[in-house]
Structures are given as C-alpha cells and as structure tokens.
C-alpha cells in the first residue's frame, strides 16, 4: 500500500436530490464513507470523499452515470494539541509545496486532515521528516470503522 491515499471526487450538478442519489449508490453497494467535503459553486458542486474502496466507489458511480475520478491525496494525522496543524502547515510551506485544498475529519482520539497538493509524495516525506504521521491507505479506508 502506498503512502498516499485515493480520494473519490464527484462532479455534482446543482439540482435537487443529486447528492442523495450519489450517497444512495455508494450505500447500496456497501461503500463506506470515511470522510467527505462538499464544495459548491453557483453552477455545480464538488464532492470529495475518502471511502472504504475507492475503485469500487468509482465503478458503481460510473455504472449509474455519475462522473467520478480518483485523486492522490495525503491524510495527515493531527494530534489534538493546539498548534499542531499550524506546525505541519509551516513545514509544508517551507518545503515549497502548494496546497490546493484541505478538509478535516475526526478520527478516534486524533483529528486528520486530507491534503491535496501538487506533490503528494514529497508532502509525505516532509511530514514524516518533521515528526508527523500520515495514514496509509489500508488504515485510512477503514478508519473509524468498528470491527
């Protein structure tokens, strides 16, 4: 398993019930959503998710005529301590990597932040080099799931 994880990104038209349809497709195919972020513009929305099985998620959405793609992102573990996200961000900026977007999710005792950058592998190196931990795919896809 790689050190970057795959995010399922979905293009959503702004129309009634569309988000519901997407979630229903994933639910009925046993694809669990670990984390999500929904960005909206005047015309359309962008749904970004970490799911239990990104390839399956994309395939079932495609079968239902929904455009989705997989994107490499980094899931950073952020300890619940004031200033820890700031410190991580500072290291990334120092390393001259550009962050496109970011969203957070709770994760047991920790918080996590999903980062989309222009160089995910480098971000992982920077973070690990400065004492931060990142989720491996196998862990991220099942996080918060009680087995």
């Amino acid at each position, binding site marked *: 398993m790689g050190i970057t994880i795959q*995010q399922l*990104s979905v*293009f*959503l*038209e702004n129309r009634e019930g569309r988000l519901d349809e997407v979630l229903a497709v994933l639910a009925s195919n046993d694809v669990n959503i670990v984390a999500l972020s929904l*960005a909206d*513009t005047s*015309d*359309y929305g*962008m749904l*970004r998710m970490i799911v239990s099985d990104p390839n399956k998620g994309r395939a079932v959405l495609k079968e239902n*005529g*929904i*455009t989705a*793609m997989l*994107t490499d992102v980094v899931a950073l573990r952020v300890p619940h301590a004031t200033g820890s996200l700031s410190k991580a961000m500072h290291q990334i900026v120092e390393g001259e990597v550009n962050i*496109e*977007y970011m969203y957070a999710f709770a994760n047991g005792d920790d918080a996590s932040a999903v980062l*989309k950058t222009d160089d995910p592998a480098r971000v992982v190196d920077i973070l690990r080099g400065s004492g931060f931990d990142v989720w491996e795919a196998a862990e991220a896809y099942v996080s918060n799931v009680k087995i």
Partner: protein
Amino acid sequence: MAAVTLENWVERIRDPKIECMSADEMAALQSKRLVDVVNRVYNNVDFYHKKMKDLGVEPGDIKGIEDINKLPFTTKEDLRDNYPFGLLAIPKKDVVRVQGTSGTTGKLTLASYSQKDVDVWGECVARCLTMAGLTEEDIIHVCYGYGLFTGGMGLDYGAKALGATAIPMSAGNTKRQMMCMEDFGATAFACTPSYALHLAESLEEAGVVDRLKLKAGIHGAEPWTVEMRKKIESILNINCFDIYGLCEISGPGVAQDCIHHAGLHINVDYFYPEVLNPATHEACADGETGELVFTTLAKEAMPLLRYRTKDLTSIDHSMCACGRTTPRISKFTGRTDDMKVIRGVNVFPTQVETALLSIGGAVAPHYLMIVDREDNLDVLTVMVEVDESMFSDEIRKLDALKNKISGVLKQALGVSARVKLVEPKTIQRSEGKAVRVIDKRNL
C-alpha cells in the same frame, strides 16, 4: 473497420448517364420534365391552378427550365393549409404510401407517394449509397426511425434498390443496436449524426469497435459540422457521408456528398434546385448563400413547385473530382428556423458545435443552447457536458475550462455566452433530430 483514404478510394457511380450528363443534356431533360409537371399540377391540383391564375401564368408560358422563375412558390404553410391530401395530383387510390414530419408547432406535414414516387426515392438513395462506396455485398444497419419519419423507410428503399441487405433496426435501445451491429456484421450504418456520435461513443466505451466490420456511415436529417464528421470517423475508423432530403420533396436521397466532401451532389434529374436570396427571391450566384428551393420534376402524387425549404446553403455547378457533373450544395449552415438572433447577431447551433470541437477532444459536442431574456437583454447560456476526460477534482481547473469555452464561443459567435457545466449524458441524446436550442423569449 476500414476507413478508405482518398488515394485508395474506388469511385462507383450508379447511373453515369445521368450523374455525369452534360449541362445541356441535363437542361433538356429537366425542361421536358418541368413542362410535364406544370401541366399536371395546373390541371389536377386546385391550389396550383389558382396560384398560377393569380400570377397570370399559363402552362404554355413554361417552355423550359429557364422559365422556372415565372412559377409560384410553395411554402410549408401551404402544405399545412392543404393538409392532409389537398395537393394530390393523382387519384387517392393511387397513393401507396404517406410519410410525414412532425412540425415543432402545430400539425404535421404530410407527403404522399405513388408507386413510381417510391421507386424513384429508392433509386435516389441507392445512388447515394453507391456514392458512399456501398454495393449489393453490403449490410446496412438502419437505425433511423421507421415510421412516418422518412429516414428509416428511405434508407430501406435505397438498400433494396441497391440489392444490399437492410437491417431495419429503427431508432433507440443503444445496447441492442450495438449487439446487432456486431452479430450481423453490418458494413454500414445510417442514422442522424447526433445519434451516430452517441452510438460511436457507446461502442468505444464497450470496447467493441475492433470487432465491427463497419466501413461507412450515412448520416443526415440535421445539420452537422465537418468536425463532427471527423470525430465519428475517427472513433469508428470509417468514412461518413452527409445525406440530405426532406419529406415534402421525397426524403433522404435528394442529395449527398461524395468522398471528396466538396458539397452534396443533388439528384437534379428529379429535384431542381434554386438558391435564392430569402428577401428578394433573386437567384444567388454560385458560392453565395441563400435559401434552397426545390421543384420536383417527376413526382406523381404530390409534385411541388418551387418549395421553400428554409435551409440555407450555396450551390456549385463546377465538375467534381469524383467525375459527377451534378451540382453540389454546400454543407448546411442551418435552417432559417434554427437561426437565432441574439442581441442582433445571427447565431446558428452549428457554430457552437464547431467552436466546442475546436477546443480539441476535451469537450464532447453534446450541448444545448438556451436563449432567454433578462432585463430586456438577450442572454445565451450554453450547457456543456463535463465528461471524464475534462473532469478535475479542482474547482480552479473546472472554472478555467469554463472560461476557455466561454472565450472560444464568444470569438466564434460574436456574442458572449454563459457556459454551464453539466454532468455527462444529461443532455438528451436524440434518436431522431437533436434538440439544440431552446428559446425561452416569447418573441
């Protein structure tokens, strides 16, 4: 799969005597037929008898094809006023078939055919199929609708006249179309260009293109661009041809382009074309755009004099590289009906199609134009499908794409357009004629 390049193309001409006839001989044939048809409508159709009387024209005044401009025009409204059988020039019992077109407003337009009319129609389509390189060996998958719409029956009659095998699929059910196309080994298919593209994309997606035996596509019934033809040709690795016709005149087979794609050869021994300035009704010179007007020279059941098609085109009488002498009309820029005047600028849907295809692969040519009026100002919105190849998880990139499309449209149309990105396959695919424009202004 076998597209043929121009240098390897073997031109076949079904009726060289007619299709390669000298201008003088053709004029003599057309003159003889025009005199005959004018006599028939004057004596048998009240509508034309009255129209000619009103203009002070007697059948004797029409001595040859050069006198055609003395004759009255016929419009779609005239057909509606005489719906359904008011323009018959033969006894009703001799009508063997009717075909129609669904007008977007009001009643449909109905055309009647005698047995000879049906035979001529089939012959004209057979000439077109031959022009597309097809012979009696070929298997033609017809996915135009069968019914009142002339597409399905027209291609069927043409395949029959040619002696080829017709597969009467009719429109719809893309999955079944794909299965039959593969199983029966179709070597050609016929449908509207928008459906052809949809089918081509579906075949590509299913990964079956390599298993097909297709070599030609025959597409018409709606205006389409050269870029769209090339797109269908490249997906399926075939040669595509633009067939033209209208039910009032006969149906598909009135004209079609040859492998040189230098305009559509008209079957002028049966359909006499004029290209006229829509305002002054003066004849346009070769190369000048005007409204296409047809006179049916041999039709028995419902002959029409100078029928105004509302299709805009130009004509070229020079000899074509394929060897045919029949004049060619340019690919259609649109119909006078489809043209929208947006903030004083004439806009045709085909211009939008060309602009979208010019962006190069990233944008599917499936679009819908919506014209509306906000605060007394015309607003054009173009809905464009975001397919997988152009999708990004970054809003910044999607916005950049939107702006790029907007810029290209503004340059191509001369008016600014709002671009709205929509999900793939949400713009309706037509199985008949594609709806490209919705005008919400109540003009």
